[in-house]
């Protein structure tokens, strides 16, 4: 194990999240009830994804500035874990919305037409598909230097696409998701009480550290693999 203090910190923060997240007092919201605790899991996936994509973006710029191959590997692996977090955020959101958004007089299947029009869902799907295209683009180029350069440039464009698709457009439109045309999707004081933040912020840090840990493992594996190939 290498440089392990932040890994231990990440695990401890997650243990705290799992215990306190289920035990603290939460506001009695008639629509959400106990599902409000999903804030510590579902929302943290998106925060983790955003941070991992930022790291991937920075490493892509570093590759273009220095031309060092290690930055290319790191950029790719951070984007991969970021996409994993995004998919988990999407899936958990799908489960959560099935119990809180749908019209109680219609079945989940029949409510699909209203849910499918949610700007937040469409925006998040666009963002994830843009990053999925990054993986496809990368793997379609054989030459190593060309692949690294083109995918670094595309990574910067993909990062720029995140802002309209998940930060700006969904916030201008009305939505069932909190933080539509008013308020904030994660930190809305109307639905989240102050003591929930005592768990929420550590949860973001914990999940992000675990994501970074997985990404570093994948980077080290990739480096070993390429060293073996070049021997």
């Amino acid at each position, binding site marked *: 194990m290498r440089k392990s203090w932040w890994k231990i910190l990440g695990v401890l923060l997650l243990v705290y999240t*799992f215990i306190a997240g289920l*035990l603290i007092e939460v506001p*009695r919201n008639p629509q959400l009830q*106990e599902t409000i605790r999903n804030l510590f899991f579902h929302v943290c996936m998106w925060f983790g994804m955003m941070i991992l994509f930022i790291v991937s973006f920075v490493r892509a710029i570093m590759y273009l500035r220095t031309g060092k191959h290690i930055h290319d590997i790191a950029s790719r692996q951070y984007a991969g874990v970021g996409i994993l977090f995004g998919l988990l955020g999407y899936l958990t959101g799908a489960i959560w919305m099935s119990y809180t958004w749908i019209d109680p007089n219609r079945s989940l299947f029949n409510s699909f037409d209203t849910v499918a029009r949610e700007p937040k869902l469409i925006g998040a799907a666009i963002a994830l598909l843009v990053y999925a295209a990054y993986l496809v683009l990368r793997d379609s180029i054989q030459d190593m230097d060309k692949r690294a350069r083109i995918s670094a440039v595309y990574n910067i464009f993909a990062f720029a696409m995140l802002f309209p698709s998940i930060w700006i457009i969904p916030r201008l439109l009305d939505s069932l998701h909190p933080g539509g045309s008013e308020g904030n999707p994660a930190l809305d004081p109307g639905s989240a009480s102050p003591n929930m933040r005592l768990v929420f912020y550590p949860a973001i840090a914990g999940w992000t550290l675990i994501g970074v840990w997985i990404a570093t493992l994948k980077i*080290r594996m990739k480096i070993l693999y390429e060293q073996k190939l070049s021997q």
Partner: protein
Amino acid sequence: MKKLILASFFLLFTFIVNAQNVTMADQMKENGKIYVVIAVILTILAGLVLYLIRLDRKISKLEKNK
């Protein structure tokens, strides 16, 4: 003025009543079954973390051997 105070008291009262009418998993906390859930999810977390630690150790070993 009196009416206003009375009205605001009434409003506050209805808020409190509404807040208590929301069904929450209060019983799960009373009889302690929530700790069973915490034990289960912590076990899963421990399993995943042990897996990551083992992976990390193996990669470190490979890095030393090269």
